[in-house]
């Protein structure tokens, strides 16, 4: 293994090892059964959503989809640390975090099924929708942070991007400005070791991605992205600093992309199955389940009932998505401007109600 994934536990924030053994004193929230079960349940639900999304795509009922398999702990851990006043700016593999924030599965299916209404979620109204152009969400987060600073209500902008995003100027420009302006923002790197076919070691000579924060004078830390407790704890501390006016933080979460890049990708063209198999041993659900069983009395019945519920929730959401008729064609013009210029209004009119 290469790059930041080779860090030892002492160089990287981690509470639970791959077998679920507790390595150091847990933060307070992680002593609470209800909190841990909520985190675990959301990760299991996210995986169920993922499986259903892929099944729908494979049967022609969903568009190209980016799986979060193996990375569930990152966006769930981050989102679970946020308050309602914070603003979440996801990339395209943060389904779990979006679900935690209150976006519904039906809305996510709509988005990935090719319907803009999936971004008009009823839940966190100020959260940004999924961001496809890599790293371009980080400048938005800087602007959101500026807005939150003006409002003075203590909100923090929290953006997530992949390891690939750290190669882009957008990421660096935004990281630099949140430092220079002391903005309340947290940037999270979901390092899954692959930018489609480009492995982490070939993307940069930097030992860690978190060290890129050094260049702008911000704290940068590395955590085990497969340990939801470590992710949430690092986010919580970064949020506290931001709320106290102490500025931004860069958090690199080490994980592994167990899936193809998207349903349109075939990762066997560029990486070995053996490597993927090795990483299955460190995936985030197993360790938290082991800890729940060992320390919180999580039973086989609890597990089975959770799996049943998450599958049934996913099925229901998928049915609702599939039963949602597409927008009428004129919808493509209806939200272009607040008030449509005459030529746009005319186009909408011509399309009629079909």
């Amino acid at each position: 293994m290469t790059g930041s994934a080779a860090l030892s536990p002492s160089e990287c924030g981690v509470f639970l090892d791959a077998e679920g053994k507790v390595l150091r004193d847990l933060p307070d929230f992680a002593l609470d059964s209800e909190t841990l079960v909520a985190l675990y349940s959301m990760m299991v639900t996210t995986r169920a959503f993922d499986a259903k999304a892929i099944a729908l795509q494979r049967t022609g009922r969903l568009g190209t989809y980016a799986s979060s398999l193996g990375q569930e702990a990152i966006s769930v851990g981050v989102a679970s640390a946020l308050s309602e006043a914070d603003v979440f700016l996801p990339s395209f593999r943060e389904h779990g975090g979006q679900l935690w924030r209150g976006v519904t599965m039906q809305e996510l299916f709509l988005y990935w099924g090719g319907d803009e209404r999936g971004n008009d979620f009823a839940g966190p109204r100020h959260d940004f929708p999924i961001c496809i152009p890599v790293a371009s969400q980080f400048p938005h987060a800087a602007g959101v942070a500026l807005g939150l600073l003006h409002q003075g209500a203590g909100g923090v902008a929290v953006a997530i991007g992949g390891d690939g995003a750290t190669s882009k100027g957008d990421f660096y420009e935004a990281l630099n400005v949140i430092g220079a302006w002391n903005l309340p923002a947290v940037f999270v790197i979901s390092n899954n070791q692959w930018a489609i076919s480009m492995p982490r070691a070939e993307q940069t000579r930097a030992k860690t991605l978190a060290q890129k924060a050094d260049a702008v004078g911000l704290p940068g830390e590395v955590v085990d992205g497969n340990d939801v407790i470590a992710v949430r704890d690092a986010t919580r501390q970064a949020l506290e600093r931001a709320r106290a006016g102490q500025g931004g933080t860069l958090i690199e979460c080490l994980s592994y992309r167990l899936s193809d890049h998207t349903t349109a990708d075939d990762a066997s063209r560029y990486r070995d199955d053996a490597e993927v198999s090795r990483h299955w041993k460190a995936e985030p659900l197993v360790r938290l389940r082991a800890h729940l069983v060992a320390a919180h009395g999580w039973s086989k019945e609890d597990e089975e009932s959770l799996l049943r519920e998450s599958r049934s929730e996913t099925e229901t959401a998928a049915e609702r998505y599939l039963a949602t008729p597409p927008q009428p064609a004129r919808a493509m013009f209806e939200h272009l401007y607040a008030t449509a210029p005459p030529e746009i209004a005319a186009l909408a009119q011509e399309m009629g109600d079909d």
Partner: protein
Amino acid sequence: MTDLTMIDAIRRALSRALEEDPDVILFGEDIGIDGGVFRATDGLMQRFGAARVRDTPLAETVIAGMAIGAAAQGLRPVAEIQFMGFLYSAIDQLANHAARLRNRTRGRLTCPMVLRAPYGGGVRAPEHHSESMEAMLAHIPGLRVVVPSSPARAYGLLLTAIRDPDPVVFLEPKRLYRALKEPVSEDADALPVDKAHLVHEGRDLTIIAWGAMLADARTAAETLTGRGVSPELIDLSSLKPIDRQTIRASVRKTGRCVIVHEAPLTAGLGAEIAADLAEHCLTSLLAPVIRVTGYDTVMPYARLEDRYMPDAARIVAAVQQVMEFA
């Protein structure tokens, strides 16, 4: 009512917007203590504070991207790109996000931002400082692109652009920044953004121009009037959306049209206007629509700049060609 240059009018509009709306904030490179390289923001940081008039690091992508985030969060950011030649790195943010945010969230998040940029040639600036890339921006659905041609127009259009609920790129013809003064009332009303302006009426042909080219078009129109030709002059003003009704009505009346722009010919905005006239006004046309534009080459350095820019003589020659068409 005071006589103002365009740069003064722009500063006054920014100042009024900052006074009227606490959500208005300004940011860009050197706009604070330095007052902007053209002094558009001179004194504003001192007056409104460094929290509302902010110097950014030298980074155009994040200037545009931050404006999007701040706008989505309810602010009314007016961001400055120092010269249009440096706007290329902001196009990703404009096209992929600013122009789409309302649409892709079905109106949940909006982007009421203004991106100001000095544009065009004619001031002997270094290379990369004299570009006219308005057609690239006008090609992006969801944006508004506005170009003032006079101090009063700059004042009124900038106020409207800042109040607009959608993203506006506001291009300032820097050749006109200090070229002329005109009376601008302190409480002048905002001007409509989506409208072309009929500068003066005529019978024989329509000349369409915008920004600094309007000055040359005016000079040409005076010469032509002296020669017994009656030109109608239109300031396009809104490059996106284009006020097609005003243009068509004019050309239906005059039957002839010359379009003037500083940007290169190929795929310039003149092509869009000419195509629109061919589609909608063919039976009114008495002559081909002619474009007087910059050439299809890289903007030359200062010593050849004047040879590149369309001028009154080229406009007059084109009009004569159109008038003599049998």
